[in-house]
């Protein structure tokens, strides 16, 4: 880890310039679209407990970024801060900044609700609503006030096709979502997350409860989706990270240890900790 850049940061309080891992390892910032997610000296606390330590991380647009690391290292916390889902928890606090496309998500001018509309989220445990498949998919559109039946129907078909579920459910759209299998439910949740055409999709261990076939389908799906969406995925499955992601960030005890192209992280990591983790020697 580059300690120097961490220490140099306080002197540039309003830095809009990616630093640290990014400047060292990627060095291709000029090619990035302006829309990206950037953590700047970001620390996060649950009450008195610090969970994230001085994170500097840039997530590029229309790519898949995997977050890996041992349990409890703060991956989910990081992810949940991107769409400010952590706001619902009492006593949280952050330092530093978190930007999406150059705007801080903590900007007082930002409406959290509209921020969340820009960001789809898929949870570790699939959580369809106790409603029909159709209603599940269009929930995001409904709360956004879309009423036109044709718009809703199109969105259902488009998102279910995109999440590779259309053929399996097209004849039972009005049945309860609970009648689906676990893998189908998770794909339904993905369809729901993309129905309102967000810019970013956050996935927190989306395949942890699924069998290899369902996992395979979702991985294929992620490949498809990355053409249109920026995807951040948390996973404990090294093969999955290697298969689906373009970049991988390795966290350990709330710190970002290493962030690089996935190939680099798995083939030629800089840090011995990363090496140890990806080769399965601890975690």
């Amino acid at each position: 880890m580059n300690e120097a850049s961490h220490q140099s940061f306080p002197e540039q309080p309003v830095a809009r310039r990616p630093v640290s891992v990014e400047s060292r390892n990627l060095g291709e910032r000029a090619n990035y679209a302006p829309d990206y997610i950037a953590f700047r000296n970001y620390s996060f606390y649950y009450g008195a407990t610090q969970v994230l330590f001085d994170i500097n991380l840039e997530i590029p647009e229309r790519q898949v970024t995997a977050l890996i690391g041992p349990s409890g290292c703060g991956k989910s916390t990081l992810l949940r801060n991107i769409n400010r889902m952590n706001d619902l928890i009492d006593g949280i606090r952050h330092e530093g900044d978190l930007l999406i496309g150059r705007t801080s998500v903590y900007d007082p001018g930002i409406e959290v609700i509209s921020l969340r509309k820009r960001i789809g989220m898929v949870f570790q445990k699939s959580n369809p609503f106790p409603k029909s498949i159709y209603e599940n998919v269009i929930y995001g559109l409904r709360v956004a006030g879309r009423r036109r039946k044709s718009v809703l129907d199109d969105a259902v078909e488009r998102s279910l096709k995109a999440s590779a579920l259309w053929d399996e459910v097209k004849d039972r759209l009005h049945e309860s979502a609970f009648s689906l299998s676990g893998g189908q439910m998770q794909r339904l949740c993905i369809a729901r997350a993309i129905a309102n055409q967000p810019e970013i999709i956050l996935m927190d261990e989306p395949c942890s409860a699924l069998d290899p076939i369902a996992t395979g389908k979702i991985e294929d799906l992620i490949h498809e989706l990355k053409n249109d969406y920026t995807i951040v995925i948390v996973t404990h499955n090294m093969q999955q990270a290697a298969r689906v992601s373009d970049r991988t960030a390795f966290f350990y005890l709330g710190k970002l240890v290493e962030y690089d192209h996935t190939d680099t992280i798995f083939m030629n990591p800089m840090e011995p900790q990363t090496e140890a983790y990806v080769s399965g020697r601890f975690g």
Partner: protein
Amino acid sequence: MRSPRKREHAPRAGAPIPERFRVARSTLIFDHAMNIVIKTGGIAVVGAIGGIFIFLLIQILPLFRGASIDYVGSFELPDLGIQAMGIDPWSEIPFFVDPDGTLHFLEIVDPGAPHNRGWFTVAPPLPPDTAFPFARFNQRYGKLLFGTDDGRFTVVNLNFEQSFPEHRQREIVPRLSGNPVIRIGRSDAVFEELDYVDAGRTKLAVALQRLGDGTSELHAVTLRATRPLIGDPVLRRDREFDLTGLFEGVPRFVRLTGDADFVIVGTEEGYLHLLARTRDGFEPRQTHRPFHDAASEAIHSMDFLFGDLSLILTNPEGRNVMYSIYHDEGEGHRILGRTKVFDLLPGGRGADFYSTSVRNKAFLIGSGNQAAIRYATTNATRWESELDFAVEHALLGGRYDRILFVDDANKMHLFELSDRHPETGLRAYFGKIHYEGRAEPEFMWQSTGGGDAFEPKISMVPLIWGTMKGTVFAMIIAVPIALLAALYTSQFIRPEMRGIIKPIMEIMESVPTVVLGFLAALWMAPLISGSVPSALLVIAALPAGILAFAAIVTALPRPARRWIRPGYEFLYFAPFMFGIGWIAWSLGPVLEGILFAIEDPGTGAVVADFRLWWTETTGAAFRQRNAFVVGVFMGFAIIPTIFTIAEDSMSNVPRSFRSAAYALGASRWQTAVTVVLPTAAAGIFSAVMIGFGRAVGETMILLMATGNTPIMTVNPFDGMRTLAANIAVELPEAAQGGTLYRSLFLGAMLLFLMTFLVNTLAELLRQRLRERYKAVE
């Protein structure tokens, strides 16, 4: 032969189980004991509920039984030429009046016993050397009416006393006292009909005479009681009126109503004429044709029901109808009208014998060997039978417990009648009934009233109505408040606040309702009744205030809005709403002055008073203790119940649903409405139902804060009486085993069934709803 290997692996029978696999004896015993205790408890609860149900059922079943009659014995009568017959209130010594006016008593209790007096005669104090070919006994007033063959009549009072001679059985002793003989009508004709009524100040007699030329005359005489210096008051003739010209047709029947206000004449042609007594004479009021729709229009018989307000009429075909005097709103005075149509008499003949009960509205009627007991109030035939003798005279005993028949062979047959609850039945409890004196069929509850001829009104419908009215008003107030509070507490407020609110609500739930009732009756009712416009304004202002607050907050620039931290909105909202409420309350009188002002017709002054305005405009009553006040306080009594259960079920909606909704950009309100409420629907529903069940059974608040008038209106400013309050109100009046007593049990049963039904339905629905979200767990 078994292989040794196999034996090694098979568990050896009888071999001790290794210590580590054993279960401690105490664990087993405890487990077993607890099993039994829990099972017993469960069975005891079910048993208790079943027991209550069965007990209630046992109490109310007699209400729906008919009458039964047992034969007691027969007595040979001497050939007396019976003019009239009667019986004492204890039904022990019936008597028969012979053409000389002599009363022949027969003691029918313990016939043949040494103390039995058998036959004995008493001669009434009648003037000597006079024949009395006309005699009639009025069982209700104990008056014997005697008529001569030359236009004179007299009234003999017959009282019965109990005497207890030494060493002997109790005896019933008749006491007779006479009055002067009074002239009525013509002296050259015999009486065909004679009636006399003593209505206190007014004493009236009427006589129908048939003359030699076949025409009839009707005369009325008013009497006056003069009180001599010494002794009893004496009847004197006051004025005489000839009523013959007041109606058309040949009179055959004539009766005086019990209040001496009306003469009712039935004619040969089948007409019924109502003549009203005015200050100085009589005037015709109405003419009816009771059997205009029958093949035979003639009136065959016409007799009063107990109370002397309703006539039971029959025609020769056995049609049986009732005409009653009642007050008519439209006419503005009392009129005669058909109120009941009974079943055809058995045998299809007009009534040849009739006797009214002097206890209730039952009457014994029939002809030949067909006899029936009917109950006028409920239109019901209590008993009906074909006898094996032809009846000449019949009498219903004084306490509605004996029946006497005299047959054509001069034999008297005595029956015992057991009919404890003649006035009840499904129709009495749940049907509209045309009660005596009322203009139309109604649902009414009025269990006791003045006078012995009072007709108990025992409809459960006004009470069910009252229960529902109270419940509905309470629910209108409680459900929105409780559910919104639950939603707010479970979804919006900070968890610390939630930890304070929930226990407070639970304490509120345990406030005795008598305290709430007390507050409602003594504080709230007077307060509200003087400030209805203020209360209405507050009710209207609260939602408006909410919208205003929301508009203000949204209009604030975003950075300013950050001052209001999520979950602490109430810090700003509550004072704001209090302010709005206070302003609304203070503006009440202004609103009253603008909208609810009426001009006093007397003084021409304009008064702003909602109470007057309400009564004036809607024509409905305004009472201080009304459904609105009850709704508010009963609402408060059930809010905690609904709140607690609903809040639990809303908090139990899995976090993952809410997270999903938030992540999709739903606002807190959208999440609450589109995700939390549907998912918690089962719990919310059962919360509402349990609240409903509580409201249905609630007693104290209703007892104290309503006038307990069993009326059926939707008017929020009028009172009502509920099933539960009714039991509390009437219990002291109910004699054990009596009709009222059992009717109260019926009310209890309805209450039990209502709450049971509501709770069962709620539980079933809840299970169904829960089934839908089963995959969640």
